[in-house]
């Protein structure tokens, strides 16, 4: 049971690539922290620095308050689930799970009981005598999990553990991982670039971009108040609609010249945004005051069952709207998008949230 603290951790690869440019995160005991961000932003690098698989160029990593920069991976008492599972191909499932315990000199009976009970939890009991190549992708994934769990480490690390599974299985495993993590109460760090996974799993969500942390917080807090246009467009599916503002004589206008009709929440505001579900679609000419009203032309309709997505041209850009059920609109329809002022997000020139 442990806390994990990163202080201004940096990683410069010998090739000169600065993969992590100074990251500070504090993860309390028993919490699940998800690192999310686009490909190449340095998530895996950061995770591997915590694991001890990469050296730390500067800054510190502390586990349970103890700085572990100079501690080897074996001594950090951390378990990791790799994206490709990294199961030992020449060992049976049982031995794959028992290997870490054996290396630590755990007594034989204890190994056996721990492996078997872990296998039971993960429904692997029938597979213990098989080799990895005789397992399905989902089974391999569970073995990888089992190998991490059986050791009962201080910290779990997961590097995109579900990305090789199909969508349905991914959904199941997501829930399972969450439950396991809760019941085991082990501090965990989970890397993904899937924002849905990130939202559903995280106690603490860390959004990374280009080697830097964009925002840290509870998933819904981040969803509701993204700290930057980057976070706004990365968290949420479909992403937040963002419209650039230009200063006109009678107040700010959109790219196509439409005046927004009221003052932004902040004078530095250069972009406004609203979530697809935070605006109403109406054919009505009338609109409430203090709301953003955009004439829009439907370009495409994507029904996904419980809801539909309308892709529209509005304010000189493309926006997406989420409507419940079957959409009445057809491509080519003219309509209005109405977003109430309190649902609007404002960002300055650099993309930072304002107001």
């Amino acid at each position, binding site marked *: 049971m442990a806390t994990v603290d990163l202080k201004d951790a940096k990683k410069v690869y010998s090739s000169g690539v600065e993969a992590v440019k100074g990251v500070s995160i504090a993860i309390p005991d028993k919490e699940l922290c998800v690192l999310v961000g686009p490909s190449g932003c340095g998530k895996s690098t950061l995770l591997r620095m915590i*694991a*001890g*698989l990469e050296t730390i160029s500067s800054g510190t990593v502390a586990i349970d308050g103890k700085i572990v920069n100079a501690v*080897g*991976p*074996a001594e*950090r008492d*951390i*378990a*990791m689930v*790799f*994206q*490709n599972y*990294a199961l*030992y*191909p*020449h060992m049976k499932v049982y031995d794959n799970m028992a*290997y*870490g315990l054996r*290396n*630590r000199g755990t007594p034989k009976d204890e190994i056996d009981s721990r492996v078997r009970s872990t296998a039971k939890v993960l429904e692997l009991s029938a597979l213990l005598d098989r080799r990895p*190549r005789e397992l399905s992708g989902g089974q391999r994934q569970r073995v990888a999990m089992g*190998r991490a769990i059986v*050791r009962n480490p201080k910290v779990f690390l997961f590097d995109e553990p579900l990305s090789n599974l199909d969508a349905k299985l991914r959904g199941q495993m997501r829930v399972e991982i969450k439950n396991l993590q809760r019941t085991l109460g082990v501090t965990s760090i989970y890397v993904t670039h899937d924002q849905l996974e990130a939202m559903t799993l995280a106690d603490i969500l860390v959004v990374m971009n280009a080697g830097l942390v964009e925002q840290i917080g509870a998933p819904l807090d981040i969803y509701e108040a993204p700290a930057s246009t980057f976070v706004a467009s990365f968290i949420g599916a479909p992403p937040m609609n963002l419209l650039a503002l230009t200063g006109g004589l009678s107040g700010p206008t959109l790219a196509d010249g439409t005046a927004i009709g009221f003052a932004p929440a902040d004078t530095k505001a250069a972009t406004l945004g609203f979530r697809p579900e935070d605006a109403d679609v109406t054919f009505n000419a009338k609109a409430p005051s203090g709301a953003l009203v955009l004439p829009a032309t439907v370009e495409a309709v994507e029904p996904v069952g419980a809801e539909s997505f309308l892709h529209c041209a509005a304010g000189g850009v493309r926006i997406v709207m989420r409507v419940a059920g079957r959409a009445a609109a057809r491509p080519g329809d003219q309509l209005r998008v109405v977003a109430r002022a309190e649902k609007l997000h404002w960002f300055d020139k650099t993309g930072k949230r304002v107001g």
Partner: protein
Amino acid sequence: MEKRVTFSRWTVGILFAVPQMLLIFTFFYWPAGQAVYWSLTLQQPWGGGNIWVGLDNFRSILASADYWNSITASLAFAAISTGLAMVIALVLAALTDRQLAGSRFYRVVLIWPYGIAAPALALAFRFILAPEAGFMAVVNRAWPGFWDPGLDGADAMASIIAAFSWKYVGYNFIFFLAAFQAIPRSLIEASAMDGAGVVRRFRDIQFPLITPTIFFLLVINITESFQDSFGIVDIMTSGGPANATNLMVYKIYSDGFKGLDYSGAAAQSIILMMLIVVLTIFQFRFIERRVHYR
């Protein structure tokens, strides 16, 4: 109708197989058959005629102490040089694999010895190991008479083993390094996180995973030590002193080509061939079981 389809497939199959079979026949079975025939006769070297002698050639070879000495020498040579060449290469490759910087350089440098023809290599080693002029002269100055491959059979054997192993260290190294590098990095990392140190990791993960390569190299090294040793022996010791390095392949050459005893040489080459076949079967039967194919 269906019958005809199968039949024509058969014909096509055979048609495709024919060139292969012709090749195998002309380059293996025909010469092998020739060798068997020669081994059962006494051949006049100029082809003037021959006499059927049954198994007499084999009898006289197997009754010869020199031949048994040659077999012993060959087996010792095979075991020691294969062992050396593989262990050294394995250690080098393991070290290189850990410290990958410059591995491309090692690769080039270490493949060279294999590219060098055996006689050229042997010439170089003859110079290096010459007791009076080369590197060993220094040792001999300190301990006079310590190194004397000219009269001491063990020293001569050590010389050819050194040359042969040196050649195959490079060859083995390339395969070992490739095998190590084919092991996914994450496996090594996983075992590191599982608390395995360098030695354990090597023993439990890397070694089992390169067993197919080890097995392949074992078969190749042993087979080659029976065959490719010829040039080295020829240049370095000519089978001496007092037959101490008269390996089977060299004895075949000297009896057959120098001594023009084609029949005796044919019988010897059949015994050598059978020995290699038996060794190879043994390796496949008993060692391959312990190989883990991924």
